[in-house]
Every structure is written in C-alpha cells, then in structure tokens.
C-alpha cells in the first residue's frame, strides 16, 4: 500500500457493516475530510469488494490503493 496508506488522514473500521449503511456512512465520513485527503477504510462485508470500487466510480472519489478488506479512498476535489 505504501505511500497512500502512510498519508491517510482518517481511518474507519466499518467491521461487518455493508450495503447502504456502509456507503452512506462512508459518504458522511469522507465529506468531513478536505479535498485530496485519504481515508483508510476497513470493510469486511462480503459485498464490499464489489461495492466500494463502484461507489468510488460513481462519486468520483478515487480508490487509490489497498487490498480487501482495506481500501484507500481519496476525497475528490471540490
């Protein structure tokens, strides 16, 4: 994971939370970051490997690294 993980400004262990609960809370938490900052998310829900990349594509917040169950997500530019 290297540099991106080292630069994470926030960390959230979502545990087994999944589906709508996961991405809505993720939105709230990422909204609280500044543009360009990175969130280190740990999500163990079995749907997360499909859902998190899709969420990143839809919202424009780049998935910059990580391997399931860890995802490094960068807050997009405003």
């Amino acid at each position, binding site marked *: 994971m290297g540099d991106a993980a080292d630069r994470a400004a926030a960390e959230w262990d979502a545990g087994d939370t999944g589906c*709508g*609960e996961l*991405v*809505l809370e*993720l*939105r709230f938490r990422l909204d609280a970051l500044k543009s360009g900052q990175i969130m280190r998310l740990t999500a163990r829900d079995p749907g997360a490997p499909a*859902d998190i990349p899709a*969420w990143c594509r*839809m919202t424009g917040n780049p998935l910059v690294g990580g391997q399931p169950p860890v995802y490094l997500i960068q807050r997009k530019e405003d």
Partner: protein
Amino acid sequence: MANRFCVSLTCAKDNPDKATVAFVIANAAAGSGKETLVFLSIEAVRLAQKGYADAIREEGFAPLKELMESFAKAGGTILVCSPCFKKRKLDENSLVAGATIAGGAKLVEFLSDGSPCVSY
C-alpha cells in the same frame, strides 16, 4: 449515468424485510451522491407516521427507524401517496423527517426526468 434514483415501496409491518431493504438500498443511492426519492404507497404510507417504524427491526440490518433517519440526514426525499394516506385516515401533522404527501404527478415528474426505479 443518471443522477437520480427512485425506490418504490408498498410494504410496512406486513413485510418488514422488504420495508427495511428498501431503505438500505435508498441509503446506498443517497450515499452514492444520487438525488434519491423513496415513494411510499399502499401499506408503506404507514411508515411516514412518526413512531410507526420504531418497532421494525429486521435481523442483520440496522433498525428501520435509524435507516430512515440516516436517509433524511443524507438529504433523501420521501413522497407519501396521498390517496393511500387518506384511505388509512393517517395524521398529516405527524410525518417523519423528509416526508411529504404528494400525488402521482410528483412521482411521474421525477421518473420522467430520467430516473431508474426499484420496487419493493
């Protein structure tokens, strides 16, 4: 890709599993930055009454009340079918956050402007 998403729900305590999953999906849409509408009709209009959803807790999901509160907090809109609401003699002065009573035209307008819709 459409920036709107609609969830149509017809169940309440008669099918709490469907009622819960509908709001889980609605929260996925709202959390993904979509302008999201939940349209409540038939028995689902009862969910628009404060307190009604408090007892609905499906195993494996957050309580429905919390899901609905999160949806409102995310800016989601709940439209409540007017004739369904009136038929059941519910109280329009006791609506949950984010809920508005509306007729079918409002739903048709939302969908006609380009929105996918999933139904429960």
